[in-house]
Each structure stands twice: as structure tokens, then as C-alpha cells.
């Protein structure tokens, strides 16, 4: 176990021992280690790297350190900047997990139920990856989650760059119980008044967050961006159904052209996504 103090030292430590595994909060990794599923030859602890434990402003963007904990992101000062990410952080499990688990860890483990992921997808966040020799490269978060671009050996997620939109944002999550639990479906929705856009991502129902792009464009065209911004309830409902139909599609018709019904559990998932998307848009525009 090494405990580097800077991002570049951490990258160097990973390069020195290629079998080493980086660990930040350890909420995912250590449960695998404890269960005997994983025996890393060495660990590189990221907890002492102060430069990635906070955030800074950069050209109208927030540059978020990958070591930000969920607990820190849930606090009011952060919530004033990026409300949806703060809401997702507050919903991400019990206090013990939120105190330890980090933004970078949530991205790196890329669990389908990772609560920050649909928010980052809706914000079109960009990851800043630290590589050997002090190099930095940028990957859109959706590319990493979709597997279009991967981290190379020895690379680490250093920062996450998100736009500061100065407009309402909502994160809503459906779970099986009232206490902390994994999402059965989640919706992140952000308004981008400067670009007159609505961006929405649906989490937990697929291996990666899903973006209903057509529904976003359709609803953005309905909103009076210079006026009241509100929409009639029928439009909110139609948006919810549009999002749900895009993210939980019908089965293709059988060869003889008859419609293939969805099983009740899938229909319920679609109904849940529709309700979450409708509520999220309603709250963002209210």
C-alpha cells in the first residue's frame, strides 16, 4: 500500500507496480476484497491527494476533484452550484458510505445503479485523466461509461469538469424501500438556458445512463425560455411518456406483425421512468 500525496505521484506509483489497484473510498473495492473475490497485489491509496478532494472554478465550469466524497457534495454550498449532483450524492446510500465513497470511485466502478452517473451524463461532464509523465487527456463521461474509450493502464481519473448552468436541476430516484437503497430507476434533468436546452438522463435501468435525445429536443422547443418557462400538465405527461418509451422500448413486433407485450415488471419500470421524468421536468420548471 502506497499513499501518494499528488496525482502525478499516484500515477507513478501505478506505473511502478502495474498490478497495483488504486483505492479511494473503498466502498466497492473493499467489499470484494473482504469477500475474498479480489486479492490485489498492491494498493495505491488516493485518500491523501489533497488536490483532488475539493473543487475550483474554470471558465464557467466547475472542476471537481475525483476524490470529493458524497458527503461533501451533499452540502449546501455544493448544492448551490450543481444541485442535481448534490441531490444524487445525498441519495447515495447510508452516511457511512457517503462519508467514504467518492465521485471518481462512482465513475470508475461504473455500477449501473451509481447515483452520480445519470447526473454527469445529463451535464455532459468531461473527465480529466491523469497519465504517466504528467500528461492529461479528456474523455466525455458518456464515452467512458459506454466503453467507447477506456482508461489505459496506469491512468487515473483526476477531475470531472461540469458546466455551471445557473438554472434548476433535479435528480429523482425510485428505490425499493424508504431507507437508503439502490435505485430501481433514476432520472437526472438539467436546464441549460444559455443553450436553450433540456438535458435528461435515466439511470439504473441499463448498464449505463440513457439519454432520450429526441424527447429532450422536443420539450426544449416547447419551453418559453424568455418568459415563464412553465408547461401545461399534459406537456409534462407527454414528456414523461416520451422519455419512458425511448428508454424502455417496446419489443419489436413478431414476424407476423403482432405486437409483443412487455412483461408486467418491465411495464412498471416504464411507468416509473415516465413518472420520474414528468416530476423532474415539472420541478425544474416550477
Amino acid at each position: 500500500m502506497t499513499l501518494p500525496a499528488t496525482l502525478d505521484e499516484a500515477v507513478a506509483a501505478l506505473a511502478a507496480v502495474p498490478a497495483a489497484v488504486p483505492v479511494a473510498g473503498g466502498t466497492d473495492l473493499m467489499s470484494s476484497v473482504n469477500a475474498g473475490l479480489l486479492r490485489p497485489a498492491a494498493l495505491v491509496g488516493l485518500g491523501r491527494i489533497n488536490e483532488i478532494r475539493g473543487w475550483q472554478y474554470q471558465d464557467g465550469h466547475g472542476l471537481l476533484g475525483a476524490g470529493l466524497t458524497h458527503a461533501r457534495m451533499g452540502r449546501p454550498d455544493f448544492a448551490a452550484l450543481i444541485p442535481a449532483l448534490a441531490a444524487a450524492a445525498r441519495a447515495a446510500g447510508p452516511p457511512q458510505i457517503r462519508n467514504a465513497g467518492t465521485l471518481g470511485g462512482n465513475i470508475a466502478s461504473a455500477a449501473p445503479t451509481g447515483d452520480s452517473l445519470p447526473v454527469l451524463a445529463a451535464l455532459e461532464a468531461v473527465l480529466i485523466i491523469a497519465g504517466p509523465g504528467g500528461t492529461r487527456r479528456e474523455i466525455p463521461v458518456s464515452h467512458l461509461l459506454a466503453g467507447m474509450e477506456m482508461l489505459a493502464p496506469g491512468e487515473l481519473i483526476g477531475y470531472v469538469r461540469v458546466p455551471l448552468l445557473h438554472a434548476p436541476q433535479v435528480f429523482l430516484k425510485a428505490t425499493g424501500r424508504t431507507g437508503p437503497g439502490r435505485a430501481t430507476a433514476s432520472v437526472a434533468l438539467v436546464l441549460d438556458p444559455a443553450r436553450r436546452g433540456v438535458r435528461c438522463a435515466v439511470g439504473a435501468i441499463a448498464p449505463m445512463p440513457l439519454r432520450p435525445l429526441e424527447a429532450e429536443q422536443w420539450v426544449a422547443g416547447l419551453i418559453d425560455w424568455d418568459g415563464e418557462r412553465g408547461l401545461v400538465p399534459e406537456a409534462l405527461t407527454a414528456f414523461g411518456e416520451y422519455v419512458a418509451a425511448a428508454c424502455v422500448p417496446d419489443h419489436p413486433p413478431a414476424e407476423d406483425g403482432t405486437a409483443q407485450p412487455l412483461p408486467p415488471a418491465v411495464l412498471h419500470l416504464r411507468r416509473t421512468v415516465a413518472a420520474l421524468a414528468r416530476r423532474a421536468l415539472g420541478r425544474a420548471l416550477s
Partner: protein
Amino acid sequence: MSNETVAAPAPGAEQLPHGIGSSLPSAEIRAKTAGTFPYAADLWAEGLLWAAVLRSPHAHARIVSIDITHAQEMPGVRAVVTYEDVPGEPLHGRKTADRPVFASEVVRHHGEAIAAVAADHPDTARMAAAAIIVEYEVLDPVTDPEQSFEAAPLHPDGNLIRHIPLRHGDPEAAGEVVVEGLYRIGRQDPAPIGAEAGLAVPRPDGGVELYIASTDPHGDRDMAAACYGLAPERVKVVVTGVPGASADREDASFHLPLGLLALRTGCPVKLTATREESFLGHAHRHPTLLRYRHHADADGQLVKVEAQILLDAGAYADTSADALAAAVSFACGPYVVPHAFIEGWAVRTNNPPSGHVRGEGALQVCAAYEAQMDKLAKKLGVDPAELRLRNAMATGDILPTGQTVTCPAPVAELLAAVRDFPLPDLPKDTPQEDWLLPGGPEGAGEPAAVRRGVGYGLGMVQLLGAEGADEVSTATVKVHDGVATVICAAVETGQGFTTLARQIVQETLGIDEVRVAPVDTDQPPAGPSCHGRHTWVSGGAVERAAKMVRTQLLQPLAHKFGMSTELLQIADGKITSYDGVLSTTVEEAMDGKELWATAQCRPHPTEPLDADGQGDAFVGMAFCAVRAVVDVDIEIGSVRVVELAVAQDVGRILNPAQLRVRIEAGVTQGVGAALTENLRTPRGLVRHPDLTGYALPTALDAPDIRIVKLVEERDVVAPFGAKAASAVPVVTSPAAIASAVRAATGRPVNRLPIRPQAAVGAELA
């Protein structure tokens, strides 16, 4: 188990609560809160080895071969045992010996033990277990209990574990109103907060000592001795701290291999199960399929109940026969039903084994008959609580088994108490950000989509083992040097027995400092900790022994003064006569002597159910009424239980604080059964055997629990007139929650746990 007692108060200090009826705190409470209480997983012995158990990855397979050579050759491995190494009986079981210690030819469920390894490091043991090469021929699993009747026998004993065709009354009887329903109850896991663990230590005489958190030490000892081919006295079970038990604890698939490995290696062997192994190993609540038809007259009086009840026993019989008897006997609930035709089956499948979990059998039928009562109320247009009141059972009524209810049965009083309790306020007058909506504080709840529902449940459970089980317990009380000690093999599982034993001795002997000795099988048996038996029989045995000591203490004094011992009182360490003439201290009367007495308590005998399901099978019964208030997000189908109002028939309150805790714990377990707890086993394979996938209620899921009324009508046959309190709230609260969700959504809700799609409002579904 810790013997630490709360220190006696200094003279002049505030008197601690003592005696029956006081809220005496548990003696272990400090050690438990300080983290120094020794549980089985904390045990250590010089030179101990670590065990690991190899478990079947298949639900049903033929074992072609088992090759242990690679595992044996691994450095650090000291022994590998399989079915060939079981010296005694190859089969064991709590009721029926039908379960192999290690699978030999066939594996019948996912997680069945096949071999065990002892090594000098836990990781080595696990790796060696993984290095055992088992060649399987995978067979089609029978996972649907309805298929079990037709399927080829899964076991030499056949697939039908028990069939009870209960016939009571006139089969031709019919009512003007008929309601029918089909209900399914899921597989609840006892999910003890501490997973199974144990230590086996070989003895110089060729025997072995098992240090385990057993809830039935003598039963476990006999089972172990039979498998090891040893006389029972050469196996000793020493009970360690029990980290939670709402079911049988210490699954035999852990402790039987543990002792075998200790005998084989001559070294102490320890095992601590992972959470996954714990889920795979121990018995679950019986998943149940129920079909009901209720007949009533136009006034809502029940005429006849017809029901078919199918219990999925899993791969082995365990205590399924008892669970079926409870399910069939209580199939109509605490209602007067003149004609009942209940057919019950417990069948074998390749699902994980089912067994004793608090309120087994009774919980499943309660959810079904209460759903039927709601249906009937709707059809008749009667208030659901009113319909239940019209049919409520009372003392003197007859169960469908033909047994007359002789104990107090204040069912109508309980129901009226919860019905008349004021409903909780709607949160509309508080700031919206303070509302706790379904889905939780960071959830998606929207006030406009939330509907509130109120529902009722009436439940009953048996007290003590049924159908002729010998429910005897033995206890010894010793007094020496101003300290009383209770020696009784009743295991403190968290149910509060040791506190109760101390209170009984305080009450009878007037001695405040009472200790309870740790439990092992050198003591006379007290039986398993289930069906509230220790409150009844072990409490009764302690009381009798304490009374015998009292007589020994007072007899010489009484003789000296020419009065009977009944005219002498003991209180606060002083002995006084009724007229105040005699006054002496207990210490003086003891005169340095040591007084011992041992006594037994054995309740009146019961009889097995006959071929028609008739018989006086139960010693006693306890009843409970629950009113549930729920909020349901009718679009997403998320449910939050806002409040559960409980009224319970407790006979007599022995320890008010402890009683409340038992009821609150039971209700919360019921919330889990109603909403989230279901161990899923597609194709017989346990999915998500962890506490993320298996969602227990958290503090946010636990509702406000209002204990509205505790009815103290003493049961004359029970010691102190008290009834055990833990099981009946577990049984009743799921039914009440389902009833409330029905009221909120207008949906039938015929499955537990309630799935979100079943709690979507009727107008949206």
C-alpha cells in the same frame, strides 16, 4: 455468555427496578453496548485451525465424483472431510433425519454442504475448499412446489412431507356471499445480524466440545453426537453469545463439519460464515401458495372457509410438518367459523430449505385470511373493522381443529382498541421539506401522487410446541452469600429470558443480586428457544425452584415460631412475619448455608392432529390486532408505513420495557416481510445473498409503533399468567400493511412482499 450483573445499589442510592412487573434492564446491556460481549465469532483457542465448507453451486445435480487430492496436498491444509468421513449417522434433521451431513450422491439445493476443510489460515481453508474437484451431472431442479407432486422423488422419503386434510363441520354448508382469492407469500430470511460462527475443541476422552450460538443446545448436541457416532455425553455444546435469533440458529451444515474436523485433526477448529454462506445455509420462512374461498351470510357472519395451503419446504423436511400444522390450524384466523375444510401440504423442492422462523405457518395464512376479510367487507359494503368484529373469536369458541379456546382470547377488545385509537395527522400543516414521503427523504415522492390507506390485521400464534411435543424445562436456583444463581439451559437469544429469570428470583426470594449461569449441555435440557417456550416453561421452572429454595430458607424459622411459611414475607433482604412480630434478615436466616433446588415445569399434554386435522394440539395461543396506516405513491408503487397501532393479548406484563421492545422488533420484522424481504431463487439458485440485495427495514422504514393496549387477562395455565409476546406481532403486521395498501390503492394486493407494480393505483394500473 456474560455473567456481569448490574451492581447492587449502595445503601441510600436510588433503588434499581426489581421483581416481576418492573423494567429491570438486561444484565448484558453494558457489555453489548461497549462491544465487549463475547459472541461466537470472537472465540479463540491456542493453535486453532480454520474451517471452510464447500457448497453446491447447483440446485439439483448428481455427484459423479469428488476429488480431494489437490486440496489435501495444499500446504497448510490439515484435513478434508466428505460424506465418507462421517463416522455415525449420515443423516440428521430437527424433526425427521433426512438431511445428509455432506451430500454424497445428489445435491438437492444450492448451498448444500459437500465437503469441509481445516487449514492453518482461513484463506487457505477457503482456497482448499475451492480446489476440491466435484464432477456434477446437473439435473433439472424442481422449484415450483405445484410441480413437486408430479415430479420424480427428489429424496428416498418422497416429495410429500406432510398432508393435512382438515375437515370440520358440514361440507354442504354454503353462504349467500362468496369471495375467493389466490395468495403468494415470499421467502423471508431470518437474517441474523451476526452470521453463523463456532469453535470446536477436541477433548482428551475422544469427545468434542462445540462452542456455538445454539438456540437448542441439547437438540444440537444429540444431532452432532449421532453424526459423530459418539455417546451424547461425550459431545458438549457450550452456548456462546447469540447475535440475533428469530429462527433456529446455528445451521447444522456449519457445526457438524466443525466438530468432525476437530475430531479428525485433534486441534481446535473455528469457522465464521460469510454473509453469503449464512444466506445459503440456514432455513428460511416457507414460501406459500394459498387458495381461499370464504362463505358468509348477508350480515357478514362467516359460514364456511375452504382453503388449500401449499408450503414449499425446500429440499429437506426440517420443521415443515410443524409449520404446516400451524398453517392449517390457524387458517381461519381468530374468527368463529362453523365449517372449515382446509387442505394443507408441505412438499419437497430443490429450493433452499425452509424451517422455523418466528410465526411460521401462521404469518402466511394471516396475510391470506385477512385479504379475504377485506374482500368480503368490500363485497358486502361493510366497514372492514366492523366485519372483523362481527366474527371475532372469544374464549370458549372452537378452532377448526375442534379444540376449544380455553385461554383468554380478547380479540374484539384488541380490535376495538386499535380501531378507536386516533389516526395520525396528515403532514399538511408542516413544511413540505419535512415530509417523509414514500421513497425516502431523497426519493422521488410527490405529494399529489400519495394516497393514505388504513388497514387492519388480526393474528394468532400458538404458544409452545404443538401436537404432543414434550415441552419440559428444568431449572436450578442456588443461593449463597446473598447472591442467587439461576442455572437453566434456556438460551438467551435476545428474547430477554435471563432478565426474566432474575426478576422471578428477585420476586420470590427477595434477593436483588441474581446471576444467570452460562448455558451448556451438562445442564438438564430446557428445550429450543421458540414458540415463546422459555417465558412459559423455563420461567415456570425457575419460579418453582425459587419457591423450593424459599421453603428451605423459611421452614426452620416457621417451625421455630409455630407458623406456616406462607405467613412469612421476604422483601428487600428482610424476612418478616404477617403480624410483624418476627423480623430478621435473609443473611441471618441463611447462616452461611448454601441452598439449592431444582424443579421442572411441564405444561399439560397436547395431542397430534388426526386424519381429519382434528385434535387438541396447542397448549396456548396469543392474539394481536394491528392497524396499519400507509402512504403509497400510486404512480411508482412505493409504500411507506406511517404508523402501526398494536394491541396485544399478553396475559400479564412481566417487564414493561422488554415487552415493548419485543413488540416493536416483531412489528419491524413484519414490515420487512410485507414490503422488501424476499430471498429470490430463480431456478433454485439464491440470488443476491447479501444485505444489499436482500433489503431489511432500516430506521427510516420502521414506522411509528403505537402500543395502544396490552390486555392483561391472565392465562390460568401459564406460569404468572403471562403469554410470550414476540411472534404474534410478526404474524399480524404484514397482513395489516397489505390491508392498508389495498385501501390506499384499490388493488387486490395478494402477494407478499408487496411489489411496487402491485401498489400502483387501480386507476393507473
